[in-house]
């Protein structure tokens, strides 16, 4: 058994009251925090706040060109959403690559973001979509770009008493393609050695109007590669261009050696993965033009 108190939040108001307790941590899907507490005692909250009854934080909706996803939406719910299939297929591919069916049935999008793993699969596609997270507390609500939300391995800018309530992004414009690619030690159930996500918007002349390029597992946090984006913008898609972008990208990433792979291997495979992701996203954007 886990050595802690469990408080059940019956409403978001009650949640903000319990969150004032300094040692409290939110228990959402529990797929990261429970093994973490059992195994190496890295995570030591004294009070867990069970939010499983807050159904109002589980939704996917579109309103005036913006998509909002409630923090407690499970990965299984995300990957079967027709709305996301239409507008954010890369996010679906990313969430589908998380753990097993059992894990996806419990794990939540908000949990994946708040856990702030450098390898968090949902983050690269959301960075490409320029997602914004809404943080709520008992007397305040603020919006933070996802790129500023995760500040280090396992660290977010959440302050005492705040919780992440939803994730928002604008519906991508026409002629946009997105992709997500992940390299793991095996096909299923693995943590990313490197992951990448790309969003490409093609103009009427077939050139890249703008590009977003994000990576996971190659820096202390998932990151955008602004150098690769600049290298792609305004250019005509080609294998040569993608190869150049993959070279430029190396100035933005700084992977480490760990139990899953070496730094050198990550540097190499990030480039290979990016070129494939760019091809897929461009192809999709071109299909979107017809």
């Amino acid at each position, binding site marked *: *058994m886990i050595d802690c*108190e469990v408080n059940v939040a019956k409403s978001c108001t009650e949640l903000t009251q319990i969150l004032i307790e300094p040692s409290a941590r939110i*228990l959402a899907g529990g797929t990261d925090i*429970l093994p973490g507490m059992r195994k190496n005692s890295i995570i030591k909250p004294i009070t867990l706040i069970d939010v*499983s009854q807050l159904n109002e934080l589980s939704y996917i909706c579109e309103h005036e060109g913006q998509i909002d996803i409630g923090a407690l939406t499970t990965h299984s719910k995300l990957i079967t959403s027709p709305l996301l299939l239409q507008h954010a297929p890369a996010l679906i591919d990313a969430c589908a690559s998380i753990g097993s*069916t*059992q*894990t996806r049935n419990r794990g939540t999008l908000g949990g994946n973001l708040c856990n702030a793993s450098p390898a968090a699969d949902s983050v690269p596609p959301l960075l490409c979509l320029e997602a914004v997270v809404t943080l709520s507390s008992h007397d305040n609500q603020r919006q933070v770009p996802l790129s500023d939300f995760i500040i280090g391995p396992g660290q977010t800018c959440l302050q005492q008493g705040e919780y992440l309530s939803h994730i928002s992004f604008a519906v991508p414009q026409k002629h946009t393609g997105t992709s997500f690619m992940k390299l793991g030690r095996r096909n*299923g*159930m693995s943590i990313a050695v490197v992951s990448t996500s790309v969003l490409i918007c093609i103009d009427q002349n077939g050139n890249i109007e703008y590009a977003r390029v994000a990576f996971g597992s190659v820096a202390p946090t998932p990151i955008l590669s602004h150098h690769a984006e600049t290298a792609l913008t305004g250019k005509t898609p080609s294998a040569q261009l993608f190869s150049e972008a993959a070279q430029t990208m190396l100035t933005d990433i700084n992977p480490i050696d760990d139990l899953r792979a070496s730094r050198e291997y990550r540097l190499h495979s990030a480039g290979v993965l990016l070129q494939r992701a760019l091809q897929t996203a461009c192809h999709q954007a071109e299909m979107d033009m017809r």
Partner: protein
Amino acid sequence: MNKLTVHFTLNQQSIRLETLAARSLLDVLREDFALTGAKDSCGGDGECGACTVLLDGEAVNACMVLISQVEGRHVLTIEGLTPDGSLHPIQNAYVQAGAIQCGYCTPGMVMATKALLDHTPQPDETQIREALAGNLCRCTGYTKIVQAVQFAAAELHHDN
């Protein structure tokens, strides 16, 4: 450690249970209800799937669910697959395919199979392998397990 009272449905029976709040659903099933079909194999990491049960019809690892989280929900374990304890067509299919050897992973495999076939009655092999990716077997081998799911799908389809 605090106590709480939880209300839920376990294998079609209404339950009211007062217990320590930080216990896992798996511990409660095995220790309080003697439902030992769901097993602990990986130590609560969510790696092995041997403790798979259905929560509101979806496959979950019972080791990763705290008892407070089942309030108001429906839990189905392998013991509740049929009302009279006879073998369910999925269990028969595992026997028929020879997909059981030591049996340790079998209850989890069967419950993950049930969740799959409830949602996708005619899965292809890729769908079967994806649905069972979170269930590890270390002796029978997956070929016969995939076959068992195919037998079960055919049998259940035939019954309908």
